[in-house]
C-alpha cells in the first residue's frame, strides 16, 4: 500500500471529521450539560450511531477478527452475549435517566453520589473506572499504530499512528464536547459499517467463490472452529471470563452508561437503543465472517490480531476498499477513545474536583487540563506496544465489573448503603487488580469471582448497615 494513498485517506478523514465537528459547534452554549450531554437534544439516529461507534472499537475489526481466527464461533457467542447485555441498559436506563434529569447530573458518578447520599461514592467510582479505562483507551491507539505500521510496511512508524489518533481525539473532544464527538461518531459509524460490508463481500464473493463455497470450505477445512470448545481455545472458563464482563458492558463502562443521560425523553432513549441493537447485530456478523474468511485465506498467522491488516496487504483487494477499511478501523478506534476521554474528564470534573468551582472554570479545566492529561496518559500506556488487543480490552472490562452491584443496587436495592457501595467497589477492584497481576485466588474464574465478591460484599454490608443509613 502506497504511503501517499494512506496519507490522502487520513487527510480526507481528518477534513470531513473536523468539518462535521465544527458544523455542530454553531449555536452551542457553553455549559456542562451542553458540553458533556449535548444539551440533552441529540437526535436519536445520531445518538444510536454514536452509541454504536463508541461501543465498537478497533477491537472489532482487529481483535474480534483475530479472536474468530483463533477460537472460531465462540467469538460470535461472546460478542452476541455482549449485545444481549443491553438488557442492563434497558433495566437501569429509565431510572438512571430520570434521576440524572431531576438533579441536573452530568456524570454517572454524580447520580450514584446522589442515590447513596454520599459524594465519596462518586469519587471512588470515578477513580476506579478511570484506572481501568486508561488501558482500554490505549488499546484503541495501539490498533491505529499497528495498522498504519503494517500497511505502510514500516514507513509510518508506530508512534506516528499514536500521535495522529491523539490529535483527532483532542481536536474533536474540545471543539464542542459531546456534540462534536457524536457528530463525528455518526460519520464514523457509517464508515465502519460501509467499509466492513465492502471488505467482507469482496473477501467472500471474489476471493472465496461466494457464500456457499465459503461455508463449505470452513465446514470441511476447519470444522473444529464451528463448535465450542472446538479447537480448544474457548473452554467454558475462558468463554465465561471473556463474556461476563461484556455482558455488563452497557452499565459498567461509563462512556456508554453516560449516554443514557443524553436523550430528551424515554421515547428517544428507546429509539436510540433499538437503532443500536440493529447496528450491533449486523456489524458483529460481518466481523465474525471476516475472521472466518481470514482463517481460510491466511492459515498460518502468528499474531491473529494482524489478520485484517495482513488480509488487506497480501491479497489483490482494490485500493479504495483497503483505504476505506483503514479509515473505518481508525474511525472505530478514535470514536471509542474520544468518548472515553470526554466521559472521564466529566468524572474528574464532577466527582473528583472540589465543588464550588464555577461552571465556566470547570469547562476550561475539562478542555485544557483533563482532556490533554488523559490523552497523554493513554499515549504513554500505548507506547508499551501491548500485543493482545482482545485480551487487554476484556481485562479492562474485568475491573469495571466491580462497579456493577453498586449501579444496580442504586436503583433496585431495598436498603441503599453508601458503605456497601464503597466496600463493594473497592474490594472488587482490588480483586480484579490482583487477578490481572497473576494472583489466581479463585482458580482462574476471574470474571465470576470479581462479580461474586463485589455483589456479596454489597449485599452483606447492606444487611449490616444500620437502618436509616445513609441519612435522608
Amino acid at each position: 500500500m502506497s504511503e501517499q494513498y494512506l496519507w490522502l485517506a487520513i487527510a480526507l478523514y481528518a477534513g470531513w471529521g473536523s468539518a462535521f465537528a465544527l458544523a455542530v459547534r454553531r449555536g452551542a452554549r457553553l455549559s456542562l450539560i451542553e458540553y458533556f450531554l449535548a444539551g440533552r437534544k441529540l437526535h436519536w439516529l445520531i445518538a444510536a450511531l454514536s452509541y454504536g461507534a463508541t461501543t465498537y472499537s478497533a477491537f472489532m475489526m482487529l481483535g474480534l477478527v483475530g479472536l474468530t481466527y483463533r477460537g472460531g464461533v465462540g467469538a460470535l457467542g461472546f460478542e452476541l452475549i455482549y449485545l444481549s447485555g443491553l438488557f442492563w441498559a434497558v433495566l437501569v436506563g429509565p431510572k438512571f435517566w430520570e434521576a440524572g434529569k431531576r438533579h441536573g447530573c452530568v456524570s454517572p458518578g454524580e447520580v450514584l453520589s446522589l442515590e447513596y447520599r454520599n459524594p465519596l461514592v462518586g469519587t471512588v467510582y470515578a477513580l476506579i473506572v478511570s484506572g481501568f479505562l486508561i488501558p482500554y483507551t490505549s488499546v484503541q491507539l495501539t490498533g491505529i499504530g499497528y495498522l498504519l505500521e503494517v500497511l505502510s510496511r514500516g514507513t509510518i512508524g508506530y508512534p506516528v499512528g499514536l500521535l495522529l489518533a491523539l490529535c483527532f481525539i483532542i481536536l474533536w473532544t474540545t471543539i464542542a464536547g459531546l456534540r462534536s464527538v457524536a457528530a463525528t461518531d455518526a460519520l464514523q459509524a457509517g464508515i465502519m459499517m460501509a467499509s466492513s460490508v465492502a471488505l467482507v463481500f469482496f473477501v467472500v464473493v471474489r476471493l472465496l467463490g461466494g457464500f456457499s463455497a465459503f461455508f463449505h470450505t470452513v465446514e470441511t477445512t476447519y470444522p473444529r472452529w464451528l463448535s465450542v470448545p472446538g479447537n480448544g481455545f474457548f473452554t467454558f472458563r475462558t468463554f465465561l471470563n471473556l463474556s461476563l464482563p461484556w455482558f455488563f458492558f452497557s452499565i459498567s463502562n461509563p462512556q456508554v452508561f453516560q449516554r443514557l443521560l443524553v436523550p430528551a425523553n424515554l421515547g428517544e432513549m428507546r429509539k436510540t437503543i433499538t437503532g443500536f441493537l440493529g447496528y450491533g447485530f449486523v456489524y458483529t456478523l460481518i466481523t465474525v465472517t471476516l475472521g472466518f474468511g481470514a482463517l481460510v485465506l491466511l492459515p498460518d498467522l502468528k499474531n491473529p490480531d494482524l489478520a485484517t491488516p495482513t488480509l488487506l496487504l497480501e491479497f489483490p483487494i482494490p485500493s479504495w476498499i483497503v483505504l476505506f477499511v483503514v479509515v473505518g478501523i481508525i474511525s472505530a478506534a478514535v470514536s471509542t477513545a474520544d468518548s472515553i476521554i470526554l466521559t472521564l474528564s466529566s468524572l474528574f470534573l464532577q466527582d473528583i474536583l472540589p465543588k464550588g468551582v464555577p461552571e465556566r472554570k470547570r469547562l476550561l479545566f475539562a478542555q485544557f487540563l483533563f482532556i490533554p492529561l488523559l490523552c497523554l496518559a493513554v499515549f504513554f500506556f500505548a507506547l508499551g506496544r501491548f500485543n493482545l488487543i482482545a485480551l487487554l480490552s476484556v481485562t479492562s472490562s474485568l475491573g469495571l465489573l466491580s462497579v456493577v452491584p453498586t449501579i444496580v443496587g442504586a436503583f433496585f436495592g431495598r436498603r441503599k448503603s453508601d458503605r456497601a457501595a464503597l466496600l463493594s467497589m473497592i474490594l472488587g477492584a482490588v480483586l480484579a487488580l490482583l487477578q490481572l497481576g497473576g494472583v489466581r485466588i479463585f482458580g482462574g474464574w476471574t470474571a465470576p469471582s470479581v462479580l461474586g465478591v463485589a455483589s456479596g460484599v454489597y449485599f452483606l454490608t447492606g444487611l449490616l448497615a444500620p437502618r436509616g443509613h445513609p441519612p435522608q
Partner: protein
Amino acid sequence: MFFVFLSLVVLAYLLPFTVLSQVQRFSGSFLFWNIFAILAILILLRIMRSWHE
C-alpha cells in the same frame, strides 16, 4: 420478562458447550447464537414498550 430473558442467556452459555459441542457446522452453535441474539433483541424491544415517564 426478566426471568425469561435471563433463562435465555443461561441457555446461550450452556447449549453450545453441551448439546451443540459436537455439531461442527454453521447450523450448530453459529445458527443458535444468531437465533439467541434475535430473541434477546425482541424481548428487549418488548420490555422497552412498557416504559413510561
